[in-house]
């Protein structure tokens, strides 16, 4: 799990001025939502901040909550319970979320995960040919996330349109009847699964187990 946590800090770098939102959604009772805000300035060191976030995530995850974090950095002067689009400082990451089509209310099978990984490799290879860097690849529990670090992309309407257009085009180009790319993850305050935590949805079976979100 250590490498997942390292990857997480690479994806969502903490610091004295950063604000991190941990959103925990209970996998059975959808009405149970726990939101914890961590402000770097309230901790003695970045290590303390990291420790508290990991501790809270781990405890809530053990209690049956799925753990999500913000894809993009929250403004340091954020006040409120949960970050909204207006609270995002800039766009730090492009998330390409690859998931199976059809019934997604139960955990994925290994075969479905493999298909998502195949598509993930196909997409990153295609983008690599266009000069894009290698993404951080995360098996999200039931699908695949590709994270690309962005440069000079702010949080404004034009950027949102650009990200939306990109995801639409990728989906149109790469989707298959079995797996596709989620076009809805374009908003600035999008939350994403926290690597190193277990994702639970629906009924777990031998063929459809709950899985930890891990790097691959």
């Amino acid at each position: 799990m250590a490498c997942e946590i390292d990857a997480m800090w690479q994806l969502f770098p903490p610091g004295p001025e950063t604000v991190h939102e941990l959103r925990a959604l209970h996998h059975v009772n959808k009405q149970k939502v726990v939101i914890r805000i961590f402000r770097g300035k309230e901790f003695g060191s970045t290590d303390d901040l990291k420790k508290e976030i990991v501790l809270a995530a781990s405890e809530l995850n053990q209690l049956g909550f799925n753990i999500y974090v913000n894809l993009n950095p929250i403004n340091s002067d954020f006040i409120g319970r949960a970050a909204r689009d207006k609270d995002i400082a800039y766009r730090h990451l492009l998330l390409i979320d690859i998931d199976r089509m059809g019934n997604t209310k139960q955990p994925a099978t290994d075969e479905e995960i493999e298909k998502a990984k195949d598509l993930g490799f196909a997409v990153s290879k295609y983008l690599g040919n266009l000069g894009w860097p290698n993404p951080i690849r995360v098996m999200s529990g039931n699908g695949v996330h590709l994270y690309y670090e962005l440069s000079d992309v702010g949080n404004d309407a034009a950027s949102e349109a650009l990200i939306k257009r990109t995801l639409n085009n990728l989906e149109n180009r790469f989707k298959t009847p079995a797996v596709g790319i989620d076009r809805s993850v374009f908003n600035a305050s999008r939350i994403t699964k926290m690597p190193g935590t277990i994702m639970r949805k629906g009924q777990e079976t031998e063929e459809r187990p709950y899985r930890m979100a891990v790097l691959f």
Partner: protein
Amino acid sequence: MSAKVTKTMLEKLNESLEKDNSKLPLLNATNSSNENYDEVGRLQGALRKLSEDVPRGKGFIFDQQQEVDDYWLGVVWAIAGLGWDSGEEIAWEWSRPSARYNDEGFDEAWSSFDKNHRTPTGIGSVFKLAKLRGWSDSPFSVMEGYSREDDQLKTKAGQTDEGSKSPLAAMEKFSVIGSSQQLKEKMLADVFVMQNIAILGRWTTLYAAPNTGKTLLTLWLLREQILAGVIDANKVFYVNADDTYKGGVEKTELAEVSGFNMLLPSVNGFNKNELFAIIGDLVKSDEANGKIIILDTLKKFTDIMDKKGASDFGEKVRNFISAGGTLICLAHTNKHKDADGKSIFSGTADIVDDTDCAFIIEDLGRSDGDFGEVETRVEFRNIKARGDVAEKMAFTYTKAQGGDYTSLFDSVERLSERDVEKAKQKTQIEREHKRDSDVIDSIKQYIHEAELGKTELVNKVHEDTMVSKSKVQKILKRWEGKNPEKGHLWRCEKRDKNLVVYFLVKTEMAEMVDNLKSVAKNK
């Protein structure tokens, strides 16, 4: 991740993808079959003509050239025989609405396919059976549940009949006697566009007060039927004419995911005032059949307070319905309620008179959660029915603080009758809590601060709120117990010398948060 993706790189990618809009040939990457979008769509279209709710059978679709009734396994094996990556998903999607369906049975059937069988059931048999059930092997074949004949339904009025001018002859020329077969073919089966609420080929009107969730629930119910394959998303046109720009965008995102059409006024040149002219053209060109139009909200298309306007609107709608169209109107209730406290429709009675089916969506109550989320419970109550629709149906949805429309959408759940009863009780309890809130808040505050005996507690609350001691005692007694579901707020324990002290009853969530805090503190 040292290298970064710039705006320019994103732009270049989009240009490249938009220029070259070919698909990645992944569909055929792992097998050499003809699995492509056209063939997948063709198979799914054929399956829509076959009932999935048939006995399992022995793996045949035809026996000695005769179709068999128990063809389910035959169809599943025929799909498995294609060797498509998407085959299992297609077979599962087709099978699962059946009452006979279960995961184990499906998995067993799918994995029992023997590709080396000497006389395998081929996919041709599936297409053959579908054709016998009315499937048309053309890219323009229509959705299940009804037939679209090229021949326009003709009444005698449509035929040239200039010879007779008598009133009786005029009546006779409109008679449809002799056209029953054509009428039957045109008639749509009872297919639910919204489960147990709106039927294909009917006009349904849903009334609700603002912010009751009528748009949310309509979108959710439509998506449910689209996902179940009951209605064809391409034929659904949601006219979102009563929303903010942001709201329009949020709902368009949902429509994109579900695949149905969303029309927003002034976007892409759409003018809502021209909608009925377009619908009229659909009727004239016989393209209305099977189209499902949702008007959100009705007041944007007609003046419901004006009898003449409402009546004209009804006439236009009736033409559309007669041509096989389906209309769902969302409308507001009157701000006043009836003598029983129930909502009533707004406007003149003409719309309710003309519509086939009407429901009032009643707000059963709202509850605040421990983390700022608000749970809303609503009930659809039928006030007019033509067709086998439900008398009542209830739903719940939860708005998380800071949550977006998608999370609100995902929170929608059906409520059983028992749940509705519980919800009503909960609403009643919350109402009573609210009524006594001054005293309740004061009692809670004192219990939280110190262990007080009953008399001392009553005295302090009385001093604090100026409410009589007898009433404070009554409220203290009313909400005493251990069950938060019954509205209990505090429990009491007897101590020495008959001293009674009170403790607050915590919700499950509050208990959990406290536990978390103490665990974190101990570490």
